């Protein structure tokens, strides 16, 4: 976890048992979250998981049916959106088409009666922050998607909110621009020192930018953690599969003896796991990230478990290759790095290889 984020102090935003229904659909289901001051916080989940509804409730565009939303310890639940120290970057940017870039950024200051001199200074500052100097007189239809995005950012940041909400801010940009904007957002957050709350369905976006991530599905929060923990220690099957890829195994407890448990992993073989990670059940589900496999044409001597497999298919991704393998009658996925030009020449479809794993890399899931 990033050392800047102090989770022990009072949270900036506290969401207490918030529920929101649309007719029979429960969009957000008894969600409780603490968003620490100065965090780059991400709500991550598939479309329809309730993350946008939750964001809109924090902004004030939706009212929770139950629960409270506190900001700096103050109940914001019934405060209208224009009175909340919270600003939003909309998915569609929502840049005012009838105003110039300058007027767009100045709007939020003008309507709240900030003196002209201060408006000029702060707008200039905000435009410099998002690198839009010289674009003041442009109108939105003369801007690219990335530039509109920057206007939307400047317009929100110029208000100096306690919390900046970002609703899928990068989804409309093409890939290269998206990567640039990711770095840009991280830089911006460091410069302005404002807490960011990002809503996204893109795991890469969340992992690379956020320092805390809440994974949501079907209106509920499944796990809150920093990106590394979330990837390395997913608690549930959904999290393991939604963030990255995972090989999942059914496990059966064979024997327990002094601190270790022997677990049979389907048709692959037996492993010894530390007792405290297994719990009391007799059946469990295990996950292994694809890059944790050691793929070797020779039998690896040091592995805790080695499996003979046949390479079925290979997808080349430039920096890595994704291998689809078959072992013990089931499909497995492995990822290898192509550090050498072309990777290992012996890895071709049809090849017989060995897969080795270390027990420490296995994750025991809760469901």
């Amino acid at each position, binding site marked *: 976890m990033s050392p800047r984020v102090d989770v022990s102090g009072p949270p900036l935003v506290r969401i207490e048992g918030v529920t929101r229904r649309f007719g029979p659909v429960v969009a957000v289901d008894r969600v409780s979250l603490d968003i620490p001051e100065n965090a780059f916080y991400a709500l991550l989940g598939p479309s329809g998981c309730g993350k946008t509804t939750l964001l809109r409730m924090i902004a004030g565009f939706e009212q929770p049916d139950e629960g409270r939303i506190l900001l700096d310890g103050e109940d914001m639940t019934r405060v*209208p*959106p*224009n009175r909340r120290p919270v600003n*939003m970057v909309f998915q569609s940017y*929502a840049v005012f088409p*009838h105003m*110039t870039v300058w007027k767009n950024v100045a*709007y939020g200051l003008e309507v*709240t009666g900030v003196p002209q001199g201060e408006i000029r200074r702060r707008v200039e500052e905000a435009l410099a922050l998002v690198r839009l100097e010289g674009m003041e007189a442009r109108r939105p239809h003369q801007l690219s998607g990335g530039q509109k995005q920057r206007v939307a950012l400047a317009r929100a940041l110029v208000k100096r909110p306690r919390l900046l909400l970002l609703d899928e801010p990068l989804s409309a940009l093409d890939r290269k621009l998206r990567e640039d904007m990711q770095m840009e957002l991280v830089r911006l957050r460091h410069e302005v020192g404002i807490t960011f709350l990002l809503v996204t369905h893109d795991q890469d976006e969340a992992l690379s930018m956020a320092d805390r991530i809440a994974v949501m599905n079907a209106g509920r929060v499944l796990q809150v953690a920093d990106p590394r923990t979330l990837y390395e220690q997913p608690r549930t099957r959904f999290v393991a599969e939604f963030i990255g890829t995972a090989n999942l195994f059914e496990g059966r407890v064979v024997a327990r003896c002094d601190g270790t448990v022997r677990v049979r992993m389907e048709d692959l073989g037996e492993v010894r796991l530390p007792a405290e990670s297994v719990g009391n059940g007799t059946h469990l589900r295990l996950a292994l990230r694809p890059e944790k496999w050691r793929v070797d044409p020779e039998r690896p001597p040091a592995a805790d478990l080695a499996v003979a497999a046949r390479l079925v298919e290979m997808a080349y991704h430039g920096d890595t290759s994704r291998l689809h393998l078959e072992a013990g009658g089931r499909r497995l996925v492995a990822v290898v790095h192509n550090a050498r030009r072309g990777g290992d020449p012996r890895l071709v479809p049809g090849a017989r290889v060995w897969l080795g794993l270390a027990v420490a890399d296995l994750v025991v899931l809760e469901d």
Partner: protein
Amino acid sequence: MESWRAAPAVFWITLVPGVVWLLVFFFAPLALIWLLAFGERAGPVAIDITWTLDNYRQALDPLYLGLFWKSFRIAAVATAICLVVAFPVALAVTFADGRVKPLLLMLVVLPFWTNLLVRTYAMIAVLRTRGYLNSGLEYLWMAAKTVATPLGLGELFGDRFRPLEILYNDPAVIFGIVYVYLPFMVLPLYATLERLDRSLLEASLDLGASHWRTFWRVIVPLARPGIVSGVILVFVPALGTFLISDLLGGPSSQLIGNVIERQFKAANNVPLGAALSFLLLYATFVALALWAWSNERMRRRAG
């Protein structure tokens, strides 16, 4: 578009009926009137085109110019009232629940289902001295007086209800124009507001603007195309109206439309009527151009 240019037949074939219609029933009569404005009466029905400018000279008489000016004023006031009344209506329909929206739109166009003449006569029944409006007011007056008299306030009401004189004057004409042309304002406004991106309104609130500010600084400027069409659709026919001023107006509420109508019918002075018609047409052009120009200037300054 390019691919359509390769197959122009579909355009030409679909275009023909409309073009023929416009040529035969719009441009030809218009050209005829334009010609007649340069004619002289040679008998009860015969008119010689002598290219005289007398008709225009006559049409520029201060009497007619005063009527032009008055018609412009009345049409402008009626259009402004239409805009003020129609905007909230259009906004309400836009934000109404999806299920009641078609019903509300139907209510807006409902008056079209009755003939203009019938509707205008109905207005007379409502507005005249012993009409529904005054009867209603009288009833309220009596009720209030009955309550007030025991309290010793009866003298405030006088001893007799005095009906409001709201028919056969200029306000009645304006009222009639607003009533008849309101849908022409509501519909284009609604069409524009319906397309408005709701997240712009949310963005405005999010940036700290009140609903009132959002209305003036985001909704109204973005509704400009609808305002422009609505204003043209109401102002132009209001300028030429003669039925409403004839039925609801008093002896001094004659508009230029009534004069033109009289030239073509009762006075049988078609050349003068034609010249007045074309003067009205030119004046309308100039007025709309001026309005568009000032609008554009305001928009640039606001940018």
